[in-house]
């Protein structure tokens, strides 16, 4: 694998994570439990989609085949997406969405904190922007984990179950392969093993304060690095890509 191929894969991973999670959060639009949370989830979705736009634009540039960020977002099939499985999970109830958001925002916080130092200028610049927004997302997810966890008996049980159910998707966030090896050597990517300790610390602190138990590590779901996804991604793309596929190159 060449450095260019590795870089393309790497930016796709980052871009696809932002795009698919952004899409999931946008599904709360008009369905939030409270008006403020409806606005909060869609605001975060907007941050993520903006980040996806920047990352996929760069990915297209790195690929060097004349594609645009729209081509990458709307014309690839499931097997070509490199988003982690956790991003594509259905939203579930609000507590489940919050559990996923806490896990992902804590991960993004640790990741982008390091990527601002990347030797790749574009990734560093996008990361400097991302880290600021991620801080607000992490704060939001932490606050709601506290409210729901240290809430009523029902809210506590339900969000505990959410964390228990979603835990098997956390391991995959830290998976690395040849792409990472090549780019870490170039000073572009980050060693995810180092991030894992920091991430675990953040999650543990929030969960314990929320009177929740940290789930034990057991079997971890895997596959997205090879483009093998959950069935959810198919449904997401069917909706998200519908317009572009039905009316190719349509413009507003």
């Amino acid at each position, binding site marked *: 694998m060449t450095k260019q191929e590795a870089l393309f894969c790497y930016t796709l991973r980052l871009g696809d994570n932002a795009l698919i999670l952004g899409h999931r959060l946008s599904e709360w639009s008009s369905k939030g439990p409270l008006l*403020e949370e409806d606005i909060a989830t869609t*605001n975060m979705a*907007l941050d993520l989609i903006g*980040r996806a736009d*920047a990352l996929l634009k760069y990915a297209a540039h790195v690929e060097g085949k004349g594609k645009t960020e729209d081509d990458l977002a709307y014309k690839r099939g499931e097997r070509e997406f490199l988003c982690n499985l956790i991003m594509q999970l259905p939203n579930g109830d609000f507590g489940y969405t919050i559990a996923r958001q806490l896990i992902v925002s804590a991960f993004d916080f640790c990741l982008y904190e390091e990527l601002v130092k990347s030797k790749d200028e574009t990734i*560093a610049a996008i990361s400097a922007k991302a880290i600021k927004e991620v801080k607000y997302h992490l704060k*939001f997810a932490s606050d709601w984990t506290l409210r729901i966890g240290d809430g009523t008996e029902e809210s506590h049980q339900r969000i505990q179950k959410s964390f228990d159910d979603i835990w098997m998707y956390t391991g995959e966030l830290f998976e690395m392969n040849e792409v990472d090896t090549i780019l870490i050597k170039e000073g572009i990517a980050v060693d995810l093993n180092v991030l894992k300790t920091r991430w675990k610390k953040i999650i543990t602190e929030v969960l314990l304060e929320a009177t929740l138990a940290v789930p034990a590590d057991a079997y971890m779901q895997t596959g997205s690095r090879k483009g093998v996804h959950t069935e959810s991604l198919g449904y997401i793309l069917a909706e998200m890509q519908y317009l572009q596929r039905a009316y190719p190159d349509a413009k507003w």
Partner: protein
Amino acid sequence: MNMLNEKEIYELLSEIPDPEIPVITIKDLGILQRVELKGGNCEVYITPTYSGCPAMKLIEDQIKEALADKNVGNIIVKLVYAPTWTTDWITPEAKEKLRLYGIAPPLHSSVDKGVLIGKAKVLKCPQCGSQNTEMISQFGSTACKALYKCLDCKEPFDYFKCI
């Protein structure tokens, strides 16, 4: 017709108001970065406030419209992420315009720490000036604003978030 130079083009574009908050300009906000004339092209560099700011497309259109009949060559608007946009770039004059418009201006990043995170009541109501204010939500009507209410005059207001 004489061709405008980079400085003149920049001055012209500095007048463009922000689509969401028309009392301040894209220069006041630090969105407008610089203008470069090279090889028959007029390159205008802008930086987004938030990653997904939907106003950026509109600002790009307004830039092109402002320069359309000015004979500056091929207009290319470039979105850049570095240097990273920060509310610290907003001038004190622009902050006062925000306040008069009814939006609590962003505190400087050095003092903002407690605002959206702690319970410290430091934000002044832009309507009545009282510091007896409370946050309703960290996310408001746009990506850049949070929602507050004043416990004295009872009016809600937006806070331009520090970032």
